[in-house]
């Protein structure tokens, strides 16, 4: 009997070779509903902002990661790896890069040379020249940069803003945090100029992202 699950895993592993010629990185269905192309377009910059911005970034990274892309986190030394795994990020293709403030942009640019996805929490007040250099490198190399920031440091192709967020499950002295319902507004350039609003569980009680 064929071990179909194993075959699917293998198929996912070899896919990036072929996908490097395509322009879209696949995402989870709940995330795809927010993206104008239904996937992450290579060479673009996406900003995640609002109360659940880091969870949003991890959920966005989950789809490409599961399909074989490598993902780096810069300025996110404090990432909860269990949460990342919960959203679907494959920890075998996740690196956490620790850099001094002065080197964040050059490290992220180097990562964009070889990794499909670079999630960046920039330092406060990053130098515009550094940000431009990073964006140019991502466009050139076909990487996707996910900026996690409250104060925009550069124009982006798409912004995913968590407008409202409410936790469920915790009461006064009882219960526990179980799931969070968020409203995400996606807006960007071109096709994405008209904002799209979606309700998501980020995370659902399973730890994954799901449409609400």
């Amino acid at each position, binding site marked *: 009997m064929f071990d179909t699950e194993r075959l699917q895993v293998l198929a996912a*592993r*070899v896919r*990036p*070779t072929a996908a*490097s010629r395509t322009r879209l990185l696949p995402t989870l269905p709940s995330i795809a509903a927010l993206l104008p192309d239904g996937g992450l377009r290579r060479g673009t910059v996406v900003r995640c902002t609002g*109360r*659940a*911005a*880091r*969870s949003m970034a*991890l959920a966005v990274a989950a789809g490409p990661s599961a399909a*074989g*892309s*490598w993902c780096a986190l810069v300025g996110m*030394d*404090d*990432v*909860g*790896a*269990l*949460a*990342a*795994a*919960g959203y679907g990020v494959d*920890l*075998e*293709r*996740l*690196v*956490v*890069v*620790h*850099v*001094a403030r002065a*080197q964040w942009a050059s*490290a992220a640019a*180097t*990562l964009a*040379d*070889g*990794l*499909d996805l670079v999630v960046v929490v920039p330092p406060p007040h990053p130098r515009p020249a550094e940000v431009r250099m990073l964006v140019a490198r991502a466009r050139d190399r076909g990487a996707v940069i996910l900026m996690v920031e409250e104060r925009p440091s550069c124009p982006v192709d798409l912004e995913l803003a968590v407008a409202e*967020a*409410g*936790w469920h499950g*915790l*009461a*006064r*002295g*009882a*219960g*526990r*945090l*179980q*799931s*969070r319902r968020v409203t995400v507004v996606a807006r960007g350039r071109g096709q994405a100029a008209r904002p799209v609003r979606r309700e998501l569980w980020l*995370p659902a*009680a399973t*730890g994954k992202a799901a449409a609400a």
Partner: protein
Amino acid sequence: MTQAGPGAPPPRLVLIECPALEAPEGAAADGVERLRRFGQVIDALSSVCPWVDAVRPGVCTLPIKGPARYFGTEEAVLDRVGEAVRGALQGAGHREAPGADGAAFGGPAFRLGVAEGVFAATLAAKAGVTVPPGETPRFLAPWPVDVLGDPELADVLVRLGLSTLGRFAALPAPDVLARFGASGARCHRVARGFDGELPGYRMPGTGARLVAALGRSLALEAHQPGFWGGTSAADERAAEVLIVLQRRLGPEAVAVPVLEGGRGPADRCRLVPWRPPAAAPEPEGARRIPPEPPWPGRLPPPAPARVIATGRPAGPSQVERVNQAHQAHQAHQVELAGEDGAPVGVSGRGLLTGTPWRLSLAGGPWTSVAAWSAPWPAEERWWSRARRRAARLQVLTVDGAAYLLVTEHGRWRVEAVYD
């Protein structure tokens, strides 16, 4: 009874120990000289294998499986390692001082050991042996428990008549956890050969200190990742840039998360330096959640997206790391108060001493508390005088932020943020 399985064994490696080149943090001027010499040893070793892991000053490892495939046998690798280290030490003008018995003159200034995991390889180096593949647990068994480097634990074990690693290893894991807490359980996994490294042995930042002492990048050989293995084009492209980045920033700057046992989120994940795929072939699923005994008091999912651990590894410079740790410490202090302004804590019976009303982070403005959990008690090392009594609490503020707080010695701090 059934016990949690061993999971993947630690990687087989050769450990090189240069006792004369140990340089504790904050060592004086000759500490820098020792670091420089140790950097030269690592440079020399990188001609044998591009991936050398500087565990702490004076101690490094390299994987042996990949190089053994390349050079033919493990003995051939050891010959080359010995040659490289000897050459580097002589080239660095290093001479072994005559020992009290005079026998050390011209004798070994370094020791080699081969085993699965850093801990066993250290003992193998001490004994000067190559432990055959798969034999590491049997090799560990006769060593006295004080090699675990925890005098208090060793003291209790010896009083219980468990004087060797083998006898300690034979205890059921859940009993060890119940009696000795998380740190005892970790020592137990090491004694059984399931975990390769004792916490606290590795000195984070060693690579960065070496780079600083040498005044240049470590001369790791440029190489094709595909030559050493690699599974897909994406893996190889990633490996290439990660190698470049490690050479520029130091090995610890590029880390991968490893999940392990523990109660709180900070215990359950550790960052370790990334290594190229086939330099140290990692068994499938090595980074997945390991099989383990149940952890009473473990937090239920979902896990928080930000985990604020004290003593993070990996700093570009030691000073910066210390400063960051200090600032982080300040930044994560929390005050939790009741309606009357009196601090709310956790009683000896594990109950809140008041009703949480408002919360202040790092001395900042007060925010009203909207909801909170019952405390999760967590007591570590209860058997020791240095025991840690801790409790965790989930708190939601009216602005929608959710925190995991932990209290120890009557003070709250943020352990994680449900960002």
